[in-house]
């Protein structure tokens, strides 16, 4: 499997994402001005502060040439993974439901978090963000729960940011686009505390049509 990791001015987690992907296949960086994703099976939109996060996190990155290509890639049913700022970009681009708002306590949080997936599996993965409070209108929340689009929740009493219904990660309706605030790319080696992050990449890779 060939993974493409986007890089915007202001991205900062693309190297770890590249490393994580290289453990599962071939991985290469894609500069934000590139428009061609041919040959790439799965795309990762990494964390960081794309275009300085000016205006709103992810608001400007969504108009980059690479994101146009990502939208087509997603439309074709191919896997797309947005991590942290990448999740914000995918929401701004309307590829995922909802929005990420300033953390409830206004503080940047940086710590290990316990996540639970839809099947009840638990994952230990770090979070580090200032704007990670998942928000969507009540009817949207009901809808994405009914359609099994809530991929990850923070474990009970572990919600670090005030996300509604403890939501940490969601997919699109088709299931091939996944966004989450925690950082699976920072949890791929027991040396750094956990290798649970690899399972997130593997789960997404498995969605390939």
């Amino acid at each position: 499997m060939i993974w493409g990791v986007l890089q915007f001015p202001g991205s900062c987690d693309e190297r770890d994402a590249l490393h994580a992907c290289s453990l599962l296949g071939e991985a290469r960086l894609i500069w934000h001005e590139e428009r061609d994703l041919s040959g790439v099976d799965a795309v990762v939109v990494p964390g960081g502060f794309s275009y300085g996060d000016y205006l709103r996190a992810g608001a400007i990155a969504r108009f980059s040439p690479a994101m146009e290509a990502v939208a087509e890639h997603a439309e074709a049913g191919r896997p797309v993974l947005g991590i942290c700022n990448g999740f914000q970009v995918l929401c701004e681009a309307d590829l995922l439901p909802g929005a990420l708002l300033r953390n409830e306590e206004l503080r940047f949080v940086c710590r290990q978090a316990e996540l639970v997936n839809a099947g009840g599996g638990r994952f230990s993965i770090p979070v580090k963000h200032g704007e990670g409070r998942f928000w969507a209108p009540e009817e949207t929340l009901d809808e994405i729960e009914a359609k099994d689009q809530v991929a990850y929740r923070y474990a009970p009493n572990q919600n670090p940011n005030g996300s509604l219904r403890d939501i940490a990660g969601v997919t699109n309706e088709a299931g091939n686009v996944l966004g989450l605030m925690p950082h699976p790319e920072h949890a791929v080696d027991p040396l750094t505390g956990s290798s649970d992050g690899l399972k997130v990449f593997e789960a997404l890779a498995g969605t390939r049509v």
Partner: protein
Amino acid sequence: MLIRPKEGILDPQGKAVERALPALGFEGVEHVRVGRMVELEAEDPERLAELCEKLLANPLIEDYEIQTL
């Protein structure tokens, strides 16, 4: 353009400002909400709403208001 968080969405920034005011002697101030203002010069004011919808505001979470001078 004035852009502010939609009614009903928790605005922690506004809350923090609200909590700080009594310490400075400003009593009786409630419902503080912090948004932002964007100033610009446009040749075609007709397109400003579209500009707000597409970039300056996120219509899911923010309301906007356009004032032309």
